[in-house]
């Protein structure tokens, strides 16, 4: 591994090579810095969890707070004087509704586009389309929110006669557009990872390209495609600014696509600016942060395990 300073015994008939001590020490110092940087990712994840939990901690022992009510009650009255309630069930449902709609659009379109890019189109068109999709992914979420508030809002009122265009459908459309690039790029990687021999074998037997796709490639790449969908879910659950501006912000269980909702992320963003630091309301917002961290951690962990499961075989 490292060329040691103390050195192995010199080879017979050759001068013994020794590095100057200074260079040995620099090497060690640099190696330490490199290792420290490598470990930093683990440290950051741990530190993020630590600080968010630390700010939330006091509320867990508060008399107004019970974990059951937090997770399963739809009553969110954080500032009420007589009846303080910290139930986020409506926001969990809101997050689920928006994410499900987004995935119902983004996964088929994303995987369809991934198949087209990897199997059907020529290299030049593929490069161009991939660049466009990369640029689509780069549009900031606050701009998506702005578009939801102005363009999609008006479109929904016009097309569906909704009284307000800020609702599940609006946010779902935005999130679908925001998470489709990640589904395309991970999905394409998954299809690329299927060995060419599989394709050639199927084509040699007289299969059409479409038959190759749905008889050979989709089954072979199913784990990777599942991971692509999961990463899309992670992206949609964690998205903040777009849903903050486009969901209409009502704490309720939605009855349909045109009902306004509030998501977990949007709730933190909307209320954090108004709470006094250290108050119970402030601590509950951090508790929602812990919940979000847990959800996205699980989703990403599952995606990683699914991908590794493929490699293990």
């Amino acid at each position, binding site marked *: *591994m*490292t060329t040691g300073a103390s050195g192995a015994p010199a080879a017979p008939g050759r001068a013994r090579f020794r590095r100057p001590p200074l260079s040995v020490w620099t*090497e060690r110092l*640099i*190696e330490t810095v*490199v*290792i420290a*940087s*490598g*470990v*930093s*990712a*683990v440290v*950051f*994840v741990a530190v*993020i969890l630590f*600080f*968010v939990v630390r*700010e939330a901690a006091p509320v867990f022992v508060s008399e107004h707070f019970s974990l059951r009510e937090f997770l399963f009650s739809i009553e969110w009255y954080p500032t009420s004087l007589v009846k303080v309630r910290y139930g986020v069930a409506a926001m969990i449902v809101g997050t689920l509704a928006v994410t499900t709609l987004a995935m119902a659009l983004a996964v*088929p379109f994303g995987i*369809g*586009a991934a*198949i*087209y890019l990897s199997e*059907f*189109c020529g290299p030049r068109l593929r490069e161009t*389309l991939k660049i*466009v999709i990369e*640029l689509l992914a*780069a*549009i*900031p979420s*606050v*701009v998506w*929110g*702005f578009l939801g*508030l*102005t*363009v999609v809002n008006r479109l929904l009122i016009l097309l569906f006669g909704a009284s307000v265009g800020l609702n599940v459908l609006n946010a779902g459309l935005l999130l679908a*557009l925001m998470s489709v*690039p990640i589904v395309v790029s991970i999905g394409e990687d998954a299809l690329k990872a299927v060995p060419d021999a599989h394709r050639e074998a199927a084509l040699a037997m007289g299969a*059409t*390209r*479409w038959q190759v*796709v749905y008889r050979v490639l989709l089954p072979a790449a199913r784990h990777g495609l599942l991971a692509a969908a999961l990463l899309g879910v992670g992206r949609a659950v*964690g998205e903040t*600014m777009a849903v903050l501006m486009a969901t209409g912000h009502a704490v309720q269980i939605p009855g349909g696509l045109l009902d306004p909702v509030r998501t977990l*992320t949007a709730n*933190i*963003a909307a209320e*954090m600016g108004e709470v006094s630091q250290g108050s119970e309301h402030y601590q509950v917002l*951090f508790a929602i*942060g812990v919940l*979000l*961290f847990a959800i*996205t*951690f699980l989703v*990403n962990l599952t*995606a*990683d395990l699914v991908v590794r499961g493929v490699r293990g075989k």
Partner: protein
Amino acid sequence: MFEATPQALRRRRQERIATSVLAAMTFATVVPLFAILGYLLVKAWPSLSISFLIEPPRDLQTHGGIWPALVGTIYLVTVSLAAAAPVGVLAAVWLNEYARDNWFTRTVNLAVINLAGVPSIVHALFGLGAFVLAAGLGQSVLAASLTLAVMTLPVIIASTREALAAVPWAFREACWNVGATRWQTIRAVVLPNAISGVLTGVILQVSRAAGESAPILFTGAVMYKAVEKGDLLPYGLNESVMALATHLYNLVTQINGAPESLQFATATVLVGVVLLVNSTAIVLRVVLRTRRKW
């Protein structure tokens, strides 16, 4: 002689349908970008001008330009880049050059994936708890930039790592065989050969940091700061700033009476900055890929 059987005809029809459906799906994901860009530009046109860029906002931000927000974003991006780039590049070096395939390396990998997956609003809570309060930085450029740095670290790590992995193993072996140490090899051979990927990562980090609003909302971005027209160094590191992304949010949701074209102009500038930076990364990647010698 070869009569097409009904089966063959059906297969051919299926093939045609599948191809066109898949192509339609692809274009459905691609077209929105152009629609959005065109729409933004058309709506923003009446307000777009050089003076819009270099003037401060006037009349309770309902008129004037976006200079303080533009400079604030440049501040945040620069400081977060200075913090994230060295750590990110070295972390990628460790993962690709030093780490062996064991449980610890897998833990680090998982941490990088999760760091990228943590919602931006949770990063904001972390920045508030750690940098603003615990470290006593207050709502400042430094606190907001460090929050952005932690959040964008995975971008640099992923891109750098891919570039390092693409450098052929024989290059390293050749270098070791003439007596170079690991670090000497990395510095003299591996990093120079991977420079395009490293730069791409850095540029993508810039684009990501410039567009984010949630993480800086409670850690350093404020609604208004008085800044002179064209002043290049208006903020100190311990002061709060205006930023483009949060300025757009405020303009749309908090400030009453701003004409729509002003909102669209701000959105256009933000999108323009981000896409310009991204395009630079793409051009760089394409140019350097065609010049690659191995």
